[in-house]
């Protein structure tokens, strides 16, 4: 008994000294960093594979990160939707359809709706088109209370079909030097770093501030964690969900433009199957599928980790016909690792 007495005083200490920073905070921050050790391990492993190139800036920037920028934006979009307690599978089809529509109206072989439209319309049209899809999803999910999973699944299928119709099974190619936004997104560099990377850094920075330190951002967590409690606390639950769906769709549309810019074309299958990787990155990064939990920084580390894995696999000369199977396995391992290092259940 007597030896346990100190323990009991320890237990009460936090109450008596309200000024003491709680351990919890540090712990929560630590969980955000759970993927840093595996990322470092991968960097080291990559270095042992190709010591001369791997850790150079040009390799990391132009071979690893540049290819993750679109994925990163879509993961951010999906993370927002997951945190607010919903699902959006249609994001991957927006990645394809939004640039397809915008580019088609500007330089496509059509006279529909008074096309060709001026090329400056590509960016706003893509964003507005994305927003409209988000708005419509919101209408069905929020107003008519349909299941987000099914609504966005149907939307995914419908938009895929629409894209095939527009692009006609082929590819709108040779965009270089025809659409300024596409040129800039594709090749402009600031301080030798591609614009797309800057954009991702900026958007994530903004997202982290908004989610962590603004009223609307925090309300996403409240709504995702317990919509009834959020409503009783005066949060306009429906509006928060709706706005989140629209913002996510716009982010996906922008990611689509970046992808088209990098490839110099809009393929009929642009964005296809991306959603699986998006969910994998988000969950590995600590976003809960149940809503209310997770951070954008965590999601970003999830993206980086997956990107590194892919590159390291290529460097390790895994055969192309095996790479997908190996990739799937590695994602499972990454999930297990993330579970072990963060110590919390993934749901």
């Amino acid at each position, binding site marked *: 008994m007597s030896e346990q007495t100190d323990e009991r005083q320890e237990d009460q200490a936090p109450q008596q000294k309200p000024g003491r920073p709680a351990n919890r905070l540090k712990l929560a921050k630590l969980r955000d960093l759970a993927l840093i050790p595996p990322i470092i391990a991968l960097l080291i492993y990559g270095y042992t594979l190709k010591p001369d190139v791997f850790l150079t800036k040009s390799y990391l920037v132009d071979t690893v990160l540049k290819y993750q920028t679109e994925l990163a934006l879509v993961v951010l979009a999906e993370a927002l939707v997951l945190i607010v307690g919903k699902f959006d599978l249609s994001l991957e089809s927006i990645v394809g359809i939004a640039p397809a529509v915008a580019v088609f109206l500007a330089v496509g072989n059509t006279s529909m709706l008074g096309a060709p439209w001026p090329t400056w319309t590509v960016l706003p049209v893509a964003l507005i088109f994305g927003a409209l899809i988000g708005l419509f999803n919101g209408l069905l999910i929020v107003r008519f209370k349909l299941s987000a999973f099914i609504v966005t699944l149907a939307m995914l299928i419908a938009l895929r079909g629409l894209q095939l119709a527009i692009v006609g099974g082929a590819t709108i190619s040779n965009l270089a030097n025809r659409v300024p936004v596409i040129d800039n997104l594709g090749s402009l560099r600031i301080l030798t770093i591609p614009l797309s990377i800057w954009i991702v850094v900026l958007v994530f920075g903004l997202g982290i501030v908004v989610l962590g330190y*603004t009223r609307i951002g925090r309300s996403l967590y409240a709504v995702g964690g317990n919509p009834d409690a959020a409503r009783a606390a005066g949060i306009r639950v429906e509006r928060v969900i709706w706005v989140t769906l629209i913002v996510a769709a716009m982010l996906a549309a922008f990611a689509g433009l970046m992808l088209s810019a990098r490839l110099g074309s809009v393929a009929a299958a642009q964005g296809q199957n991306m959603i699986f990787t998006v969910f994998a990155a988000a969950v590995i990064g600590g976003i809960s599928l149940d809503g209310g939990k997770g951070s954008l920084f965590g999601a970003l580390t999830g993206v980086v980790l997956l990107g590194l894995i892919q590159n390291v696999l290529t460097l390790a000369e895994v055969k192309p016909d095996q790479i997908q199977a190996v990739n799937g396995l590695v994602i499972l391992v990454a999930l297990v690792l993330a579970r072990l290092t963060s110590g919390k259940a993934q749901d």
Partner: protein
Amino acid sequence: MDDEQTPVVEAVGVAKRYGPTVALADGRLSVLPGETHGLVGRNGAGKSTLVGVLTGLLKPDAGDVRFNGEPAPSLGDRAGWRRNVACVYQKPSVVGELSVAENLFLHRQPRGRFGLLSPSKLRRAASDLLEEWAVPVAPDVPAKELTVEQRQLVEIAGALSHGARFVILDEPTAQLEARAIARLFDRLATLREQGVTFLFISHHLPEVYEICQRVTVFRDARHVVTAPVAEMDTDALVAAMIGEARELVRLGEDRSPVPADAEPVLELENVAVQGIFEPVDLTVRRGEIVGVAGSAASGKRELAEAVVGLRSRTGTIRAAGRTVRPASVPDSLKAGIGYLPGDRNVDGFVSVLSVAENTTMTVADRLGPAGLVLPKHRDAKARKAIADLDVHTSGPDQLVGELSGGNAQKIVMARALASDPDVLVLVQPTAGVDVRSKESLLGAVDAETRRQRGALLVSDELEDLRVCDRVVVMVAGRVVAEHERGFAEAELVAEIEGIGDV
């Protein structure tokens, strides 16, 4: 009691910590066959943690549990535990989407032909069970549609129907009204005569005296004393719980009468919710606490929900002179109405968010410039609430889902107070709160209203109603009576209970 008897359950040296929090340091308990054993202690003393260990749901860090002298089954052996102990947990444990019948016979559904489940047998077994327990619920209703009272009755009936001879009840009465409690106690007495043993947890000490033979007190995660109730009067029991000898204050005794010409802060004119309650006129003046008493079916809770904008309603509501838009919580907040919901587990808090986040949820716009939320401000507000309401937590960053029931309730109160409202609408504010904390919660209401706020206190607990300056009684959707402070309690109870007969 006969010391030779083998205890039905015996726990020694049970310890459990969660990270830095010591939930239980020295849990000890010994319950003799046939007795009803009380377990009391302040919020966060470790009672529910011990229950978790006794029912095999929590793995203790240390300690030993024995049933009838035999070592407890291994943690994986659920059937083994169920044979020894049944439990009604503090948090609801029904599956909302399943019907009452399916909940009652979860994983032990009666089988029919070919070994397949038989829906008709299930229905019949469930209605028999519900009838036996006089639970006025149809077996086909989805569990999520039950009221708190019905849900608890279903859980209690379910737990008892497992046939275990030892039943744990973790705060079964916290959200039941007087009649239901009386009914429950009758059942318990009958069962006790048949040799069933109970462990009964409650913050209502009179209940402990009414039905328990012996009582165990926990304080600060450890066992303090076990004694026959006859040898411990309320003062001694309270002293053991709070660790110092100090009499409980009788709250509200010294409230001065509110002047008749005091400015109204909340005015209800012809406010009605269709099918629930008929037009109500009610005025709360500055400095006044108006109680609304009534049973679960009286519509009192719905009245509160209509006032705060959670229900659509007809009629006019003015807060501090400003007309409030119907069915808009943000507008009611803006008009200066603060709200504490009646069932914290439903819409009281977000369990995956921190104490700080939950307490400031209603005032997220006041935590920094331009819609920014500065964690420093947020934590400061939370620390103040923690200190004011005496919340047992490791700090503003602890998740509310990890708090004990009563401490979570205090967080919900803090949330209601955070917006600095002109008028507080409180529904069952002290549910599951320990004696001392009840004092501090009601004390807060008392003090806040003296500072020129008003409060509408919806409750069926006499202790809550005692602080009110005025109490109106609702029966079946109508206001039937009004009393000034100092009302005769028996009369009030009779009026509240008149309901079932209407």
